[in-house]
């Protein structure tokens, strides 16, 4: 039996956990800065959830509309997030996204092109101009493959120079980290297990970058894969870092609703960006009835104007199908509740009457394929049925914008697992660009941190033994079935802390979560340590429950509706809540404390990018007085 002495041990400068867009970009950066870098991922290399991203990466390159620039992108991002975003992150993101996309091209990515041979850009919800660099509707695959191939290119360089592909960057695939290790208040490494063999592995490393994605597997209806169990969120909490904005969860408006086995699988927003419209059972294009006050100047009020916009954006306003995702998801939810839904409980998304069949197949090949093969629906001939699906968490680890550093020295986070960038709601297309911009910054931040260390932190045998015991525990029990505990958590979160929330339901969810905590202590996994999914799930449950408690507790406290947090009992945004962040942490590793924290005021030059009228819809009177003082 392995103990802290004979566990397989590896020494690195930077350990990146997660091999999606953010993790790979972070690892590439750390390695390019000369750091010995490990990439640790739960799945095979190249299978991370980023492959599922369809629409594109938002970057104000101005290839299609030359009026686009970082300031317009910044404004759109802040609006989309209902002004709760970490504005410094939104600024860095808007400024750096074009360079990050161009860099991919130099690493071999092949984006769709404009007539003059540049990277083509498509329309998307909440973006004022066509802005998403894309490859049909499989942009995420292109991105993950390009980054994967960049890692291989670096390994080939190292092979040339050192005779070893893995001299400076190595992928530990199908390997799950269950604990971060610390020396005093600093990160000293990570503990995990190989899925294939069940044997344990230790990373001795002063810097860890978390890039583990989201938490969707706490919900029944989700577009997320099994990997999305909130691992990074939980590892950070357990290591003493804070999470912010956990109440904000994006329910993507268009998930498949039928057949039941594919419920929740994503239908890309590109369908709407390229002309698709939403209709209810009465054939009405209902989104015109759901344009909120804050957006009413920017969206078309008639079908004629909306349709003209596709060819003439200078003189027409955007179709309301392209409102930010939170608005569209709530509208669909309301139509279904009002009895105007489709037979299988969604609404209709139709592109068949809007574009020629060949054009649909060219622009939306995966959607055509997905509906044809999974639902027997030909989207070139008939409408799709769609409904909201748990897609993305805006909340995550509280980080410093420029370096992606968490409050724990040596800990960094990028991508979905980091919080702040998207505020209360993320715009479509801003995720892929976020991964690249902050992945790179996290890699650079970690490298700089390692350079500044006087001595390497040390691993603690006591922590290793504790991690080992924790990981082995489910194998030594024969109690509760982990799959059943998981299903109950998913049902609870879906029904009680879903798209529309109210205090009593959230409190009920918290009671269930308390009971589930006890049941998790009893969960048992039969079978051996070799590739044992029941055991793996039993270990993931700890993380899912911790993040679910964060979501529910923060959702209960925030008594307003904003972005990805809608309270039936507190409708409407309240300006006094805009500056308040809810910060989750844990002292004992099992219960979550939530505290309010004030977000710093936006820098003068950034807030001056907005009109007074628009700001007055979001800011308090005192904040407006401050704005008037700056604007003078």
């Amino acid at each position, binding site marked *: 039996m392995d103990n802290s002495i004979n566990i397989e041990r590896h020494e690195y400068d930077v350990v990146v956990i997660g091999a999606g867009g953010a993790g790979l970009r972070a690892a590439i950066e750390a390695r390019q800065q000369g750091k010995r870098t490990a990439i640790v991922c739960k799945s095979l290399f190249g*299978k991370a959830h980023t492959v599922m991203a369809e629409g594109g990466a938002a970057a104000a390159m101005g290839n299609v509309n030359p009026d686009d620039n970082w300031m317009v992108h910044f404004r759109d991002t802040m609006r989309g997030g209902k002004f709760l975003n970490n504005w410094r992150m939104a600024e860095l993101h808007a400024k750096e996204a074009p360079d990050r996309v*161009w860099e991919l091209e130099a690493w071999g990515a092949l984006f769709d092109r404009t007539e003059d041979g540049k990277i083509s850009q498509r329309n998307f919800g909440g973006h004022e101009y066509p802005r998403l660099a894309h490859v049909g509707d499989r942009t995420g695959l292109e991105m993950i493959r390009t980054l994967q191939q960049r890692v291989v290119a670096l390994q080939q360089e190292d092979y040339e120079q050192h005779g070893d592909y893995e001299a400076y960057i190595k992928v530990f695939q199908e390997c799950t980290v269950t604990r971060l290790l610390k020396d005093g208040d600093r990160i000293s490494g990570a503990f995990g297990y190989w899925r294939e063999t069940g044997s344990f592995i230790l990373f001795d490393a002063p810097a860890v970058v978390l890039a583990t994605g989201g938490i969707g597997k706490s919900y029944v209806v989700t577009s997320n*894969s099994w990997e999305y169990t909130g691992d990074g969120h939980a590892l950070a909490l357990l290591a003493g870092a804070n999470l912010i904005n956990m109440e904000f969860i994006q329910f993507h408006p268009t998930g498949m609703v039928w057949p039941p086995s594919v419920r929740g699988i994503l239908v890309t927003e590109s369908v709407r960006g390229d002309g698709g419209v939403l209709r209810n059972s009465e054939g009405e294009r209902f989104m015109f009835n759901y344009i909120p006050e804050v957006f009413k100047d920017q969206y078309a009020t008639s079908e004629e104007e909306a349709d003209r916009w596709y060819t003439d954006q200078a003189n027409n306003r955007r179709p309301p199908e392209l409102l930010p995702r939170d608005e569209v998801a709530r509208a669909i939810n309301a139509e279904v509740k009002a009895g105007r839904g489709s037979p299988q409980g969604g609404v209709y998304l139709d592109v068949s009457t809007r574009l020629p069949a060949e054009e649909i197949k060219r622009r939306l090949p995966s959607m055509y394929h*997905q509906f044809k093969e999974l639902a027997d629906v030909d989207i070139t001939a008939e409408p799709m049925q769609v409904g909201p699906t748990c897609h993305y968490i805006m909340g995550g680890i509280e980080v410093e914008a420029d370096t992606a550093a968490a409050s724990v020295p040596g800990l960094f986070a990028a991508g979905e697992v980091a919080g702040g960038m998207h505020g209360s709601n993320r715009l479509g297309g801003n995720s892929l660009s976020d991964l690249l911009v902050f992945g790179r910054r996290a890699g650079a931040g970690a490298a700089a941190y390692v350079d500044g260390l006087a001595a390497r932190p040390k691993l603690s045998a006591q922590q290793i033994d504790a991690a080992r015991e924790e990981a082995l525990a489910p194998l030594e029990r024969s109690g509760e079935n982990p799959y059943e505990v998981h299903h109950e958590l998913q049902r609870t979160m879906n029904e009680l802390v879903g798209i529309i929330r109210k205090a009593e339901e959230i409190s009920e969810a918290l009671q269930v979560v308390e009971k589930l905590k006890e049941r998790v202590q009893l969960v048992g996994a039969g079978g051996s340590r070799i590739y044992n999914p*029941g055991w793996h799930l039993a270990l993931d449950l700890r993380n899912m429950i911790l993040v679910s408690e964060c979501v529910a507790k923060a959702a209960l406290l925030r008594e307003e509706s904003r972005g990805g947090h809608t309270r039936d009992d507190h409708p409407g945004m309240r300006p006094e809540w805009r500056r308040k962040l809810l910060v989750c942490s844990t002292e004992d590793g099992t219960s979550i404390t939530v505290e309010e924290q004030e977000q710093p005021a936006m820098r003068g030059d950034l807030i001056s990018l907005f009109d007074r009228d628009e700001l007055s819809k979001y800011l308090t009177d005192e904040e407006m007085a401050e704005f008037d003082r700056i604007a003078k």
Partner: protein
Amino acid sequence: MSYKAKFRVWRGEGGEGKLEDFTVEVNEGEVVLDIIHRLQATQAPDLAVRWNCKAGKCGSCSMEINGKPRLGCMTRMSTFAEDETITVTPMRTFPVIKDLVCDVSFNYEKAREVPSFTPPEGVRPGEYRMKQVDVERSQEFRKCIECFMCNNVCHVIRDHEENKPAFSGPRYLMRIAELDMHPYDVAERKESAQEDHGLGYCNITKCCTEVCPEHIKITDNALIPMKERVVDRKYDPLVWLGNKIFKRAK
């Protein structure tokens, strides 16, 4: 709408195993992977299977269903008769780790042997200009989700372990074609396709194209054009002459 289906699933680890029989519920619209998941949740919690996206986009759940390489997530139960016994086994070309999970490291090793994208010197990021028609050829190959079923089905290695060192399989020969057809790639790819990656082993039986879940025309659009390019190069009189002179000079 639901019924009980008969499943035979390969179970085993460490080089040993056998087909195990299960009777399991099937509901409308389900795919084979749903049934495997139901087996995990109700009868065999430690049944090993790889999967991620469940939408045919990540290429993780490759398996052999009634002997045919398929993605579990894209194989609908409605394509089988209700009384049919469905046999699910791991991919045959790669060593089995446990149950339906194989050691696919062969593919990652071969990937690493293909020299990476090599742009000409001096082109800076942001300066790339390419026509849509010129990128479409390589874009077709970049649709590949790396399910490895083309390599699994390819008879050059399926029953011939001894060919593995010399042959990269359709996946990576297609990768070479993709780079060769990239408007900005300047590396020499033709000779190495033949010499280092075993393009000559391919005798265009199109098995790879048939199993590709992305419907990439691997043989017609990647492998055959690549073979033609190799031949052009080999039998080009100027190249031949150049080689002669070059060799003599050495």
